[in-house]
């Protein structure tokens, strides 16, 4: 029985995310990025500079080569290693931003043997704040934040409603998906797409898309296929 100080109503967590789950999430995400490299690059070509898919794939390929040496480390160390690897391999705006996500997750989850939903919500919220600070973007600017922010909000709401582990993760993935789609009509205010002004409207943001994949991959790889609370 775990009680989170941030979510005092939530007292019944028996399902947690293990180190193996975290590793599995990262590996699966690397695969999702590889499969969607051309798709992400196509999205970027429409409103940016056609490199998001290639940059992310280069970074996560490098992460995959680093992971075997990390398998006996703790969750926090693994996440920080992913962050540092992305920082030196991705480049562009995505490099510092995705690096920030993993470094913040690693910082927030320090000393955790396994993480429960409340930990995950806190960590993801720290990641979201880190991305906002680094990129100076707010929701509605047509960036990664537009997928990340609703995912965090949905997780917190699910916790408050005492939803099951699987349901909560599923809700955050759905919210990230909606956030991603909601970037389509937006006029970009940050990042390279912002130079297009009104012409950036009508295109889905590539950064919000790769962020949705990240949240969705977590929901899919961590689903315990049960509704235990």
């Amino acid at each position, binding site marked *: 029985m775990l009680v989170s100080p941030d979510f005092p109503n939530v007292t019944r967590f028996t399902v947690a995310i293990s180190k193996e789950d975290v590793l599995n999430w990262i590996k699966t995400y690397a695969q999702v990025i590889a499969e969607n490299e051309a798709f992400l*690059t196509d999205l970027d*070509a429409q*409103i*940016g*500079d*056609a*490199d998001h898919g*290639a*940059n992310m794939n*280069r970074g996560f390929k490098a992460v995959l080569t680093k992971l075997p040496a990390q398998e006996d480390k703790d969750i926090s160390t693994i996440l920080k290693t992913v962050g540092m690897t992305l*920082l*030196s*391999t*991705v*480049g*562009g*705006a*995505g*490099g*510092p*931003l995705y690096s920030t996500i993993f470094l913040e997750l690693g910082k927030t989850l320090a000393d955790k043997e396994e993480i429960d939903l409340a930990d995950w919500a806190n960590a993801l919220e720290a990641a979201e704040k880190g991305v906002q600070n*680094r*990129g100076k973007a707010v929701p509605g600017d047509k960036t990664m934040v537009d997928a990340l922010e609703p995912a965090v909000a949905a997780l917190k709401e699910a916790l408050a409603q005492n939803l099951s582990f699987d349901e909560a993760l599923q809700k955050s993935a759905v919210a990230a998906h909606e956030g991603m789609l909601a970037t389509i009509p937006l*006029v*970009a*205010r*940050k*990042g*390279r797409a*912002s*130079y*297009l*002004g009104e*012409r950036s409207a009508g295109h889905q943001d590539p950064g919000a898309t790769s962020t949705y994949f990240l949240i969705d991959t977590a929901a899919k790889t961590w689903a315990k296929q049960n509704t235990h609370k």
Partner: protein
Amino acid sequence: MKKLINKPEDVVLEELQGIELAHPDLVKVHYDPNFIYRADAPVKGKVAIVSGGGSGHEPMHGGYVGKGMLDAACPGAVFTSPTPDQVLEATKTVDGGAGVLHIVKNYTGDIMNFEMAADLARGEGIEVEAVVVNDDVAVEDSLYTAGRRGVGLTVLMEKIVGAAAEEGRSLKECADLARKVNSQGRSMGMALTSCTVPHVGKPTFDLPEDEMEIGIGIHGEPGRTRMKIQPADKITELLLKPIVEDLPFKAGDEVLLFVNSMGGTPLIELYIVYRKAFKLLEEMGIKVVRNLIGPYITSLEMAGASITLLKMDEELKKLWDAPVLTPGMRWGI
């Protein structure tokens, strides 16, 4: 895609190997992390100038490493900013004890990666200042964008500030000079064709045979407006007018007129543009006292051109004329 390359993923590495073999007297190349630096670095007591950005803009930035210009340049992947570890290592390598100035083009990725590198370098006890170039008048509304892009003026800034550092000016003086150049220069570019990023394999945007894109950046990103193609004189007017009005440049001003090829446009066409721009400026009472014409900041094989105007004074003229010896620019030596 038709390109003179081996494998798309090897383009930057093999380019660096070529530069290393071609110019051993001027530069050295460090691999993993990648950067090009002055063969005689660090120059003791001199402020070091470091720049960098995505590859695909050659000769910028690597071609401008050498005496009288940059001390190091960090090439990212094609059209992708370099990573902080590259910038950090380059900064440490060329620091001659007088501090390091980062010249950063205003793109979200470049700013973030250079900021992180500067923080890390300061943490290691190196004095670092950064100056951001944002001269592109095509970006009208800086409130709702990431701000104006750094384009053609970057080349002029690297030359002028490089000369000042060579003269022995302090880090603060070099940074102030860079800001002065930024405040006095404006640019705008246009494309006749798109370009193909090697690892993408197809053109970044479709541009019909009879259309052009006005107000492009240097990464194959679409511009602000698209219109039917016009004669060179008309295009020159379309580019020059917003530049002149923005600063504004006024009668009596002396300027450096820089007509740049985006990569695919030949010199014969640049001179046609130069001729018209010179005449238009003359009619406005603006005197061209220096010029630069050629492919100096490119977007791979894109056809098109950009115009940059820099308001000159005696100080800037002297620094512009100072000797420079780099793979991409050399005079006076």
